[in-house]
């Protein structure tokens, strides 16, 4: 690893100031569970690391019925996994966190750091997309808020400018009659996912679909929301046939990259299986 300078700002304001000063020469470290590996490989050589791991200002989980949940970016995966508020209002989020990487990673790694690294197989983004989450970004010119699905740009690249940080994840309250499911495919349990799928359905009183969300990981350079597949369900009663139709459309949207573990066709095929399974599971929660 190359030498770098180090600073641990005490506030968000101070963090932005440092970033504005150093720009491209600075890199943020939170839990560093991915970043340190990259630094050790000398694939990146920042002049200064800006450590926000202990930035308590961004370490919180709150909930109210009107605005839903707010999770500070430096909240650890473990805190999300075990939060009574998360368990009560978004059990699927806790469930996902419970199987994210290893206990060690969850204990030290942060939810914000995970999103910012933008590993295309990441677990967190699809479920947040399904939950209609938004992210709050803070920069020298104030705040901006984006839907989760607009946060990622490419492999390991997000919309964040050099002087911006991801500050908060906002998840609206879940509408009544909503079912949400997420699961991922791995060859080795307790290992990183190959592909995964999150599906959320909200039903009208008459049982027709008021809203659907489908998002996958490992199927494109970024977490993939698939509106065309979602559209299949709108206003209709969800049936197996409809699910099959959506799955096919979802498959069309996927651009899987082959790697040493699996081919692109295989990944797509399994991702489709997971979309189907999660759709059925989500539906089963409300029927």
């Amino acid at each position, binding site marked *: 690893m190359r030498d770098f300078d180090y600073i641990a700002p005490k506030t968000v304001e101070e963090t932005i100031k440092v970033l504005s000063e150093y720009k491209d020469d600075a890199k943020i470290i939170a839990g560093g569970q991915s970043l340190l590996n*990259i630094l050790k*490989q000398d694939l990146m050589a920042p002049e200064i690391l800006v450590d926000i791991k202990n930035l308590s200002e961004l370490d919180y989980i709150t909930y109210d019925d009107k605005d839903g949940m707010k999770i500070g970016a430096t909240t650890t995966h473990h805190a999300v996994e075990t939060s009574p508020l998360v368990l009560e209002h978004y059990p699927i989020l806790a469930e996902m966190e419970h199987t994210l990487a290893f206990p060690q990673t969850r204990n030290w790694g942060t939810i914000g750091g995970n999103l910012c690294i933008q590993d295309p197989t990441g677990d967190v983004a699809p479920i947040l997309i399904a939950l209609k989450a938004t992210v709050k970004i803070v920069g020298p010119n104030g705040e901006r808020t984006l839907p989760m699905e607009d946060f990622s740009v*490419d492999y*390991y690249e997000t919309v964040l400018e050099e002087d911006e940080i991801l500050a908060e994840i906002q998840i609206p309250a879940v509408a009544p009659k909503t079912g949400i499911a997420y699961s991922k495919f791995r060859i080795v349990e307790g290992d990183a996912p190959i592909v995964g799928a999150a599906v959320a359905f909200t039903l009208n009183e008459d049982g027709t679909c008021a809203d659907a969300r489908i998002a996958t990981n490992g199927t494109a350079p970024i977490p993939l929301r698939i509106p065309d597949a979602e559209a299949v369900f709108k206003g209709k009663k969800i049936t197996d046939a409809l699910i099959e139709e959506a799955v096919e459309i979802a498959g069309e949207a996927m651009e899987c990259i082959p790697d040493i573990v699996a081919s692109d066709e295989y990944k797509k095929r399994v991702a489709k299986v997971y979309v189907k399974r999660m759709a059925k599971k989500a539906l089963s929660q409300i029927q």
Partner: protein
Amino acid sequence: MIVEETFTVNAPAQKVWDFIINPELIGPCVPGLEKIDVIDENTYDTVVKVKVGFIKVKMNTRTVITEKDPPHHMKTVSDGRDALKAGEVHQEMTVDIKEQSENTTEISYKADVRITGKLATFGEKIMRSTTKKLSDQFIKNLKQKLEE
């Protein structure tokens, strides 16, 4: 890793040939090209900056044209090294040009790209997709210039 592409441009074969063997002309089509030094008629050095995810690679590369059969076929061998020493790239590429009609030419190239060092091991999947992206970009640039 083998990268193969076949595409057509609206230009005569000879024009295509003249273009691709001239580093001064083809160089700027390479995405991220920062600098090009022509050493002799068959040899040129380039500095190419590529962003691979969060990795910024600056490749210092020497390319030698090893086979020339105008205006149909050429072969180049390139060796590049990243300034941060994250890896090296050895590429052998053959380009075949087929005139389809007076103003349409089919270009196919096949590149055997060998990446060594950390770039190869860390970024297998990223490198693959990046290579594809860069290749698409290159073709787009090339077409644009040739069809101008």
